[in-house]
């Protein structure tokens, strides 16, 4: 309860008008690179393999002749768009981006760099955290789109390598029952998760007390809490958006 109250107070201080827009803008650009671009590779790699596994698993379970072969493509598309890309990728990003943010901000706290900002009259939360939130909310959707595409490609590759289903049937499966709302739905989730990951990890970093050992603990806490928060809000969002 104490954490929750302090978290909302933090958000209040965080969302104030920056003293100079040009500085905010410059910070957002550099955060885009740190948070976004550097995550592309890991997200791409994971998505390829994930798509492959989904496709193989589905093909393995569909031994009954009653279902047409293109079901494999359809199910791979559905699971990727609805759950795997937005949620699983966000969990991975919570690990990578979250621990990075918590340890960066935590180190600044214990080495008095945050005090130094405050003493100059800078709103340190606004200066440090807001650009990260903006950058993540802008870039997560892009990451998720890449993840979707690569996951489908991964599925195709896996099926080709194992020679189970040919390309036309797989693509037909992907295209049948395609609902553009599912993309919107995934992107809404991505934006929400981006906000949660960055704000929760920043919270743990910002309120660290002590030394470098405590920074390590804070960064672990940041990953654990943001993962739990992602899964809980995933449930709420799914309920709200699909039903």
């Amino acid at each position, binding site marked *: 309860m104490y954490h929750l109250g302090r978290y909302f107070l933090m958000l209040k201080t965080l969302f104030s008008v920056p003293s100079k827009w040009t500085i905010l803008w410059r910070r957002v650009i550099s955060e885009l690179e740190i948070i976004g671009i550097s995550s592309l590779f890991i997200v791409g790699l994971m998505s390829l393999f994930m798509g492959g596994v989904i496709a193989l698993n589905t093909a393995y379970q569909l031994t009954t002749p009653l279902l047409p072969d293109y079901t494999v493509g359809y199910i791979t598309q559905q699971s990727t768009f609805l759950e795997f890309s937005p949620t699983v990728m966000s969990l991975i990003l919570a690990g990578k981006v979250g621990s990075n943010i918590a340890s960066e901000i935590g180190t*600044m706290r214990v080495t008095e*760099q945050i*005090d*130094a900002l405050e*003493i*100059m009259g800078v*709103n340190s939360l606004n200066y440090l955290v807001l650009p990260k939130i903006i950058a993540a909310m802008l870039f997560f959707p892009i990451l998720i789109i890449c993840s979707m595409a690569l996951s489908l490609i991964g599925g195709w590759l896996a099926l080709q390598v194992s020679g189970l289903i040919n390309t036309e049937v797989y693509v037909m499966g992907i295209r049948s029952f395609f609902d553009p709302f599912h993309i919107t739905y995934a992107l809404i989730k991505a934006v929400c998760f981006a906000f949660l990951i960055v704000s929760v990890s920043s919270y743990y970093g910002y309120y660290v007390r002590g030394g470098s050992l405590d920074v390590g603990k804070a960064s672990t806490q940041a990953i654990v809490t943001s993962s739990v928060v992602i899964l809980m809000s995933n449930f709420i969002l799914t309920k709200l958006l699909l039903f």
Partner: protein
Amino acid sequence: MIEVQNIDKSFADLQILHDITTIFEKGKVNLIIGQSGQGKSVLAKCMVGLHEVDSGHVVYDGKDFTSMNRNERSLIRQQIGMLFQGSALFDSMNVEENVGFPLTMFTNKSSAEIKKRVDFCLERVNLSGKNALLPSECSGGMQKRIGIARAISMNPKYLFCDEPNSGLDPKTAILIDGLIQDITKEYNMTTVVITHDMNSVIEIGENVIFIYEGKKWWQGDKKSIITTENPEITDFVYASEFMKEIRQNIQNTRT
């Protein structure tokens, strides 16, 4: 001038500062001295609002800082320069960006003007031409000096230095002391320096406040600190055997 009125400060159950009242004068180097762990840094942080005081007031030139809100404080803070005990340089920025940071944040100067001011400040701390180094590539003493350059880059009215010359060789320490004294006089600043270096006390101590167990134990100038008979102070001033001997000799020649 900064007035400190009846400040108390506790962490959890532990009271660190007890009812401290004093005045830090304008145009003078005011020293806070005392042994390690007596609350010197906490006092400085209370004065600038990094710690909230439990009771009491801090008044900057007649303006009560304690009762101000965040935005009003921010305006006072733009006139404060502070050197932290651990330097607290921003590791992601190079020397030039560190020193110029307050200028980019709060002024509309062009980057050429900022560069000029940064070069000037770096020259004052004998670090000309080190603009492109990262803090991690600088020695501890250099980091201290960069911290001072950053603290003075905005031409502050109030300058706080937490142990500006600990960890420096005697020659550089004297240079830093001299620098702090010079800029204090030149710009008529209110300067507060925390130190446990007796050399600095002798060099620049015009108004010395001795903190003991979180209380203001004694206040005076550098001459009276040498002659005072207060046992806690003589303990501090004449800590080493060598100094004790000197003191004994002085007393012997007097009698």
